């Protein structure tokens, strides 16, 4: 499917979701509760076959987190972006979202990275750990307004 066809298909199949555009790809914004259902449908439907998660990341939008999934199909070679908006509670409480690991195994490392650098927890993740910085690191560096720790203190 080309970009317009894919957008039409998404509008028809997911009436509750918001369909839009990024510069390169069609965009679908889904509610947090529907995430697994939508990704499962996109992966398994014979029209889309979105079986390849090539990038998963988060963007800190001050009041909310955007979790961004870049999906492509190895059969048809069409790409799309899926987004979930996530409310941002006060620290130390962390926002929570379902892990897509059960559908796309590539999510394991991406979600570990997001957990480490943004402080978003993933339900159903097989091995959620602070992959890069380690358990003792204070705070979540890729959040906006992150306060840098005193390096002398951190290294002690």
């Amino acid at each position, binding site marked *: 499917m080309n970009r317009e066809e894919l957008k039409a298909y998404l509008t028809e199949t997911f009436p509750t979701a918001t369909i839009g555009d*990024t*510069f*390169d*790809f069609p965009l679908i914004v889904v509610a947090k509760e529907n995430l697994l259902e939508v990704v499962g449908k996109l992966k398994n439907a014979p029209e889309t076959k979105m*079986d*390849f*998660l*090539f*990038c998963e*990341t988060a*963007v*800190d939008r001050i009041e909310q987190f955007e979790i*961004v999934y*870049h999906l492509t199909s*190895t059969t048809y*070679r069409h790409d799309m*972006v899926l987004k979930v908006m996530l409310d941002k509670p006060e620290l130390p409480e962390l926002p929570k979202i379902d892990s897509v690991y059960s559908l*796309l*195994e*590539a999510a*394991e*490392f991406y979600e570990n*990275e997001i957990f480490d*650098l943004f402080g978003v927890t993933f339900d159903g993740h097989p*091995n959620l750990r602070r*992959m*890069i*910085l*380690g358990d003792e690191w204070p705070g979540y*560096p*890729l959040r906006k307004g*992150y306060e840098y720790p005193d390096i002398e203190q951190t290294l002690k």
Partner: protein
Amino acid sequence: MEPIINFAADVEKTDEFVVNIGPQHPSTHGVLRFQTTLDGEIIKDIVPIIGYIHRGIEKMTEFLSYKQSIYLTSRMDYLSSFMNNQACALVVEKACGIEVPARAQAIRILMCELQRLASHELWWGSCTMDVGAVTPFFMAFRDRETIMDVFEANTGNRLTTNYILPGGVMMDILPDFIPQVKEILRNLKNFLPEYEALVNGNFIFQKRMKGVGILTKEQAISLGVTGPVARASGISCDVRKLHPYDGYEKLDFKEVVADGCDSWTRYLVRLEEMKQSIHIIEQLIDNIPEGDFRTKTKAVLKAPEGEYYQRVETARGELGVYFVSDGTAKPYRMKFRSPNFSNLAVAKPLNVGAKIGDLIASMATIDLVIPDIDR
């Protein structure tokens, strides 16, 4: 009297044993640690532990202008620095609507393909050394050195080249670039059959590679693997073919796809890719267009608000730059989807159930560069 240890009861049982390989192990090619759980010689579980060389490049870009960010990208995958620069430059060009002159595009492709050759040479040397052959390492470095000399003369650096920037390239190629590259190609064409004659027919090498480190097509798709590793599992994923950039669509070359799924196939795919790179350079080297090597851009670039994604094919797979702009001169968020970070996920399917002796050999054909994993 009761015996203190009852040997007879335990004789058939073995305990699980945890071995840390790295972070300073010479065969992990950098600071990467594999935490392996062993039962005898069999690997029961393997967890890659990373972060020893994390520099926070994604956070740093939020405080730098787009042009300054280019310098950080050279420090991710130091064996594909041209392609990293190119990805960052392309996404800024796309966002700001900057045209690139034809001469700059040709120079970019020439440099990137030379870099791919240099990177695969280094991989070939280190891969064969990991399975115990030392001579190929010296041969690979002898031939790679001639390419590095060209880089050093033309860009001023050997690894962190910082050469490709929004609007073109940093400076024009030197007058003797073309004869030098031709000389390199002439030599490489003689050396490649020599490489194959030296290593490919070796019985021990084949035993270590064939049927070892199986990565099926389904696993590779699910794990998001790209580059030569995915192409050796039968997935067509060459960005140069699927989403051409900088004029790759005008060139004639083949995407190397094979479906052997084992270490041996990954080895052959990379050797074949080197021949394709030589073929690409040959088409361009006599046809570099005249003209500017860079368009004049504003001193301070400001991308319109929005989200942009650009991917390029590095020597190890697909590098994606996800760039979120809020209309200011600094990126709101820049995510580097680095090929090695995704390819590291194959450590589990490749090694669980295999013998620890095969760990280094099968990871050698994944060709990991650690600074690119940590960023």
